[in-house]
């Protein structure tokens, strides 16, 4: 079996509107692959089709045409059995935008248990999974709390714990940080990064925040239902003008490098997605060699 976790070829999806008379295409032929254990950001504007792509991954929506294989299961043929769909949804966990609308139970630990309960995980395994998941996201002290007393970031971490308790292979964040404050966003992203690094969980972060995309191993830009660009954050942010054409702004540090280069200041290097990388480039250009020592001293 290949090491691809997600493999899509010419994937299309159209929404039916007006009693099925009219088709509104959301995805117009997406071809991409995501490797096992990879951390990928999918960038795109509202209405670019990025959320539709997410919903196709665990059969909330079915592809209109094209090929889609997720974790070895072919989703393009339609007609999956209930067991296959359940197994797919167990392996591909989703965290949505609004933290309030994905917590089911009135107590944190009951909510985390919701997924494994549905899967029929027996005791004492169930208890262990819930405790482990809460510990992993650092919410063990809130196990007996009511969700409405938590902050946005904490709620999203509980939502992630709910997915971890199902022992997934992949976590899809569908704009999961869009409604959070900067501190909450940091909490969630740190958690996800750790899961990716330590447990080898494949992460797909669907977002329109450039700074979040910069944290990924690879960035995929979707525009108007088509794949526009893909590559490492450095490669993608080097294409500032193309991104700007589709209404996306590169992170501030990359923007600074682009502008300095436009002023013909010779900056060498390509780590433009990372503020530290940018700072080093600027230091080198101005002959300051001791930035490293200063910042560590």
């Amino acid at each position: 079996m290949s090491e691809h976790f997600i493999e899509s070829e010419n994937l299309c999806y159209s929404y039916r509107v007006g009693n099925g008379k009219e088709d509104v295409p959301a995805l117009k032929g997406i071809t991409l692959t995501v490797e096992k254990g990879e951390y990928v950001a999918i960038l795109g504007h509202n209405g670019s089709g990025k959320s539709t792509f997410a919903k196709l991954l665990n059969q909330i929506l079915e592809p209109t045409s094209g090929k889609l294989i997720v974790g070895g299961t072919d989703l393009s043929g339609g007609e999956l059995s209930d067991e296959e769909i359940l197994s797919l949804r167990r392996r591909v966990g989703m965290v949505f935008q609004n933290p309030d609308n994905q917590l089911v139970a009135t107590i944190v630990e009951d909510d985390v248990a919701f997924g494994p309960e549905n899967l029929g995980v027996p005791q004492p395994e169930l208890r262990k999974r819930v405790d482990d998941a809460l510990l992993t996201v650092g919410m063990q002290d809130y196990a007996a709390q009511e969700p409405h007393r938590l902050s946005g970031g904490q709620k999203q971490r509980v939502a992630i714990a709910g997915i971890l308790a199902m022992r997934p292979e992949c976590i899809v964040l569908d704009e999961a940080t869009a409604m959070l404050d900067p501190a909450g966003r940091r909490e969630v992203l740190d958690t996800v990064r750790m899961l990716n690094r330590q447990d080898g969980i494949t992460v797909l972060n669907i977002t329109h925040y450039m700074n979040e995309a910069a944290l990924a191993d690879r960035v995929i830009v979707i525009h108007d239902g088509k794949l526009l660009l893909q590559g490492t954050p450095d490669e993608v942010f080097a294409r500032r003008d193309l991104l700007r054409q589709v209404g996306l702004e590169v992170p501030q540090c990359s923007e600074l490098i682009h502008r300095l280069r436009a002023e013909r200041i010779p900056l060498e290097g390509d780590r433009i997605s990372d503020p530290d990388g940018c700072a080093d480039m600027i230091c080198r250009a101005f002959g300051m060699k001791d930035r490293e020592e200063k910042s560590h001293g």
Partner: protein
Amino acid sequence: MKSVVFGQYYPADSFIHRMDPRAKVILSVLFIVCTFLCRNAVSFFLMTAAALCLVLLSRIPVHLVLRSIRPLILILIFTSLINVFMTKGEMLLTPSWNIPLPWGKTWSIRIYAEGLWNAAFMILRIFILLIGTSIFLSFTTTPIAMTDALEQLFSPLKKIKIPVHDIAMMTTIALRFIPTLLEETEKIMNAQKARGADFISGGLIKRAKALLPVLIPLLISAFNRAYELATAMECRCYNGGEGRTRLKVLQLRFSDVLAILFLIAFVVGIFFLNRLGLIYTMK
């Protein structure tokens, strides 16, 4: 954040709080049977004593219990008056007063001793009923524990195609979203106030109309939430109640069984006490 108290639940650590909610449901049913079986002074005395014991056992402040009865005072007065004036017995306490009514007839008031007894018993019965059930159910059991208990107690009904699990799940979700929707209502009201909406002045109809611009966005957002929640639940492998396990399994303990047996004995005791005809027996 605003703390939202569901119902009357009073958090405390008592024997009754720790009981299995299923046992509490059964106990309160038995308690209701008991109060309706009571017919004479001795059995009513015993029931009152039992109700007081419950209050003490549950460690709920007495003033809270009394406060929960306050809304019923009117009903209590009304039923007791009807009993006093309408019961016909053998021991007449008053000379018969005849009051001429404006439309020509006369109304003769006769108060019998039986009427007074009946009134007193009715008041006690409502009192005991209310204290007993609220101690077992609303004061010491969280709504969510209650939902769990009812789901399990009624699970045999699944055989006759009553969607017990679905109803319980809907109740759980409704309870979960009460604080969320309250918060949202407040937000919408503040947003409307900031744009000059007035929710406090004017008569009832004007105020009700002013709430319309709050209710419509609330309703729309509730539908959106429902849709998103359904998707999220599907993503978490929700597939109806089939084959689900539970994190918290309710366990009927020895003390719960003992309490139920004790109350059954009490019911039987009351049943026989009524036959003795002590002091006064209600018909």
